[in-house]
């Protein structure tokens, strides 16, 4: 009973607080924390589902009216949730360490960027960009191209494991980025480092503003990805992936065809990235190779590991935590320190205004992020929401 009251009250109050103090990052974090509480609380299933649906479908878009940036954050979180879940299949379930995952995201993004902008005229002569309505078909195209690229990567690396596989996938990720950077000659396919713009946005029904439209689109895709993940995990396919992770040789001796099962993992994981790439291209209107660096791959991997390898709620929370940390918490923190500095606050007899520029708070952001990762791995190596089985494995040490 108490938990039910706390869950309802927490979501309601924090939402009200966000509406009242739309500029406070802390209050928005409180709202997010209330959603995690709803997920964990011992309340009836229908209430949990209802509260989460209410928060994501109604409250979040409403809060976007008070502070548009929050909706942007939520949309980004949704994109990364789908990416983290895709990578979770490859790394968490099948145990195939992939350090070049963002390549599939890039392939999806470029597929719509090229055909959804006037850029394609340079390749095919005329008739582009495609009508905005094609965007929805390209979601499917992105999915298929992502899956195809996943298989393409999978084929040569099937015999590799662990460290070797990681290096090859790292190289693959770089190859895709370098290709995007250099395929402006002899035929201009990607427009090189200048990137492609303007990329068409999809037509939206009922004249919903773009920010809300993208939020709902990303939410819909992310929810589908969650569902598909759960279904895959709870099937002979998911079990075969886990068996390969545990003992490849024994899995094969028990009748699991290694080649097909591994390729399926690569294809499934990559297809989620491909579809989100299409959405990303349309949302950003402009894309360039800069968006698909090695650091992005590592970022998604950090989400999976931070959340708990192989765990779906883990990947969701990991993606949220990392995205919110990067977009809000660390930025907010350095802004706050900057304000202190500009105001000339004196700490222990030292005037912060005298701080040399090398020590500007904004320069610490990545360091703090790194420190958080290090501390997490030391004190909670199994991740935030580990799979139960995995928790036992690590808890024994």
């Amino acid at each position, binding site marked *: 009973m108490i938990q039910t009251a706390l869950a309802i009250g927490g979501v309601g109050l924090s939402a009200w607080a966000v509406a009242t103090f739309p500029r406070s990052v802390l209050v928005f974090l409180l709202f997010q924390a209330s959603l995690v509480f709803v997920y964990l609380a011992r309340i009836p299933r229908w209430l949990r589902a209802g509260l989460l649906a209410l928060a994501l479908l109604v409250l979040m878009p409403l809060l976007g009216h008070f502070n548009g940036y929050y909706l942007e954050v939520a949309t980004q979180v949704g994109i990364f949730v789908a990416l983290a879940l895709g990578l979770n299949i490859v790394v968490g379930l099948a145990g195939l360490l992939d350090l070049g995952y963002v390549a599939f995201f890039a392939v999806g993004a470029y597929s719509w960027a090229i055909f959804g902008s006037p850029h394609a005229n340079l390749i095919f002569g005329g008739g582009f960009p495609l009508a905005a309505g094609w965007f929805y078909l390209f979601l499917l195209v992105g999915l298929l191209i992502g899956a195809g690229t996943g298989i393409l990567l999978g084929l040569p690396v099937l015999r590799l494991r662990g460290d070797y596989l990681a290096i090859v996938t790292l190289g693959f990720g770089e190859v895709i980025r370098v290709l995007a950077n250099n395929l402006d000659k002899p035929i201009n396919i990607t427009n090189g480092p200048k990137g492609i713009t303007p990329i068409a946005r999809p037509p939206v029904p009922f004249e919903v503003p773009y920010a809300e439209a993208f939020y709902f689109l990303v939410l819909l895709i992310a929810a589908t990805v969650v569902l598909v993940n759960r279904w895959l995990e709870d099937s002979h396919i998911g079990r075969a992936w886990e068996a390969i992770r545990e003992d490849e040789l024994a899995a094969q001796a028990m*009748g699991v065809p290694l080649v097909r099962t591994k390729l399926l993992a690569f294809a499934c994981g990559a297809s989620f990235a491909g579809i989100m790439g299409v959405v990303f291209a349309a949302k950003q209107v402009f894309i360039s190779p800069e968006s698909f660096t090695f650091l992005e791959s590592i970022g998604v991997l950090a989400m999976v590991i931070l959340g708990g390898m192989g765990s779906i709620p883990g990947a969701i929370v990991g993606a949220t935590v990392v995205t919110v940390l990067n977009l809000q918490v660390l930025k907010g923190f350095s802004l706050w320190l900057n304000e202190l500095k500009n105001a000339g606050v004196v700490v222990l007899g030292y005037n912060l205004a005298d701080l040399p520029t090398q020590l500007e708070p904004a320069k610490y952001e990545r360091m703090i992020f790194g420190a958080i990762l290090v501390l997490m791995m030391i004190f909670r190596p199994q991740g935030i929401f580990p799979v139960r089985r995995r928790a036992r494995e690590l808890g024994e040490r």
Partner: protein
Amino acid sequence: MSALFEARGITKRFGGLTALHGVDFSLDAGIASIIGPNGAGKTTLFNIFTGLYGADEGAVTFRDHALLGLRPDRITALGICRTFQNIRLFANMTAFENVLVGMHARVSLGLLDVLVRGPRFRHTEGVLHARASALLERVGLLRQANEVARNLPYGDQRRLEIARALASEPSLLLLDEPTAGMTGGEAGSLMGLLRALVADLGLAVILIEHNMRVVMEVSDRVTVLDHGERIAEGSPQEVQADTRVIEAYLGTRHSGGLRRRRAER
């Protein structure tokens, strides 16, 4: 009529070492044991039978299918499954899930079935779950179904490996030292289970075993390997009386009370 399972002239070299030299083996029904000193090539033979190794010479046929060159999962699908000498369970999956993975070759669902999750999928999963429960019950592990494999006691892990192998509905089961590390009582009850399986399912079994009492008690035929060569084949009594076997396998010491000298590799 050709035998259910037949291997002829199997030769396997690892670099300069000839691990197996022209070994013949055949089995129609019942339990056949392969014995021999450590390093005689018994496990290598199993690895060739199940497709984990290729052979340099020879042929293996199972129900008129040529096995050499087939992938391990294809061989499993044909109806041969095995356990491992050094237990190779899926350590972080539950006992139940381990058995479910064993059924992989018998699942006729595709990716689309999983994504649609229609009645066909639900029916199949239901059947799989029921069969997994039945198998676990058969080996006496139903209560531990949701226990993670790595947390099971040693003897239970050995039995779980057998259940997992049985899950693929084999007609030929290869057991690599299933009683290793078991007490006499445990080994006895495991052999009881094995005999019941042979009787109930018409299962043929090839057994690698060091425990001579078990071998002599349970086997219909015994094959003796030494240094990669077959030095004897026959009923347990015949093999026990064979002078070459006594020399090669038992040494020149008296024949009773044999022990494994050392865990094989």
